[in-house]
């Protein structure tokens, strides 16, 4: 199962229509990255980690809807990095939102670090997102 969910070809194919890129991380694991311009009040998929989760974001003028939709039956725990909660609303610059997950797969645990940057273009009534997910075995 681990080999399957860490396969970059599978991840790139799953997110092909989104222009999603995937590659192996230098120390093992999978890096998925993508960017998207999303109009206010539209729910758009930003990243797909096949067999694990899909990240959907719904930008609004003053808040951001975040959905990490499970794509497998694996037990998972998500937590937001609290210091980054206001990243979307930070008027002083581009600040990240970060989430962490731990998936319990049949052949071992898998950690996910999700990093989302956003920049609001009010004239376009839209938000630019740049997101990446790093999937790797958790540290012992």
């Amino acid at each position, binding site marked *: 199962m681990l080999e399957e969910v860490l396969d970059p070809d599978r991840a790139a194919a*799953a*997110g092909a*229509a*989104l*222009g999603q890129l995937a590659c192996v991380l230098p120390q093992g694991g999978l890096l998925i990255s993508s960017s*998207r311009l*999303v*109009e*206010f*009040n*539209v*729910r*758009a*998929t930003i990243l*797909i980690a096949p067999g694990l989760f*899909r990240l*959907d974001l719904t930008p*609004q*003028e*003053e*808040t951001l809807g975040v959905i990490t*939709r499970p*794509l497998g039956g694996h037990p998972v725990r998500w937590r937001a990095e609290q210091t980054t909660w206001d990243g979307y609303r930070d*008027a002083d610059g581009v600040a990240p939102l970060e989430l962490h997950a731990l998936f319990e797969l049949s052949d071992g645990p898998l950690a996910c670090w999700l990093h989302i940057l956003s920049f609001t273009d*009010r004239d*376009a*009534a*839209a938000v630019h997102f740049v997101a990446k997910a790093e999937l790797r075995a958790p540290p012992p």
Partner: protein
Amino acid sequence: MRRVSFRLPADEKEELLDALMPLLPNGVRERTVEDAAIELTTVAAAPPTRAALETAAGRVLAAWEERDVPADWRQRRARFGGGAFLVGERVLVRSPWDPPAAAGVVDLVLERAGGGFGSGSHATTRMCIELLLGLDPVGGAADLGCGLGTLAIAAGRLGWGPVVAVDRMGGAVAAARENGARNGVEVAWEVLDLESAQFPLAELVLANAPPPVHARVADALRASSASARTRHVIVSGVVPAELDVVAEDYAVAGWTASASLVEDGWAAALLEPAGA
């Protein structure tokens, strides 16, 4: 640009989106059209074909419509909406680009500028208005931390007066002033830092602000208890755990919650004098 819309059963929406979202890079707007149906709309220069989406979904997509629409979002908003928020079926908070409210609904038109808060997209703004709708106007209103002026303008439109509104952000107050004029509501706008300066109170106090501001409002209410003209305080800008703490500050000042709301992880409460 092409606009495509179709309907899904509400109880199957997420499972069907698992199949459809990877094919819709521009995303979807969701709208509840009936109790059991959700309308999804996507806009793209070259959206996927109906056949491609129905194959992915494994079913016929009901109420399919496809039409040419302008690329400019303002023109699309004017035709289809998408940036307005209806509160309690009685107040519509919208941008100048959205279609006007239906007859009988209070139409609040707010342009967001100056970094101000209050477009209606945030749950705290909507909950404050919902609590406001439950009150009969009995005098003036003070909007503390007014942002774009949404709550002050709503109070004015619902019969409260005179209305005063303050915020520490000069750009927000400038935008609020324009919004007040846009909505034909007279408000005394003022730039003022609620964490350090004296601020006005009124029969109705609206405080959609972070916890430190509530501590100061509670102190001001306690100090003014002898004159005691404030009858209602609507509190938000806090998550439920913070509301518990904030409510203790107000309780010390003699105020207790008579109603509370929670939405999207945020909380709001209507406070009345204890024993009222």
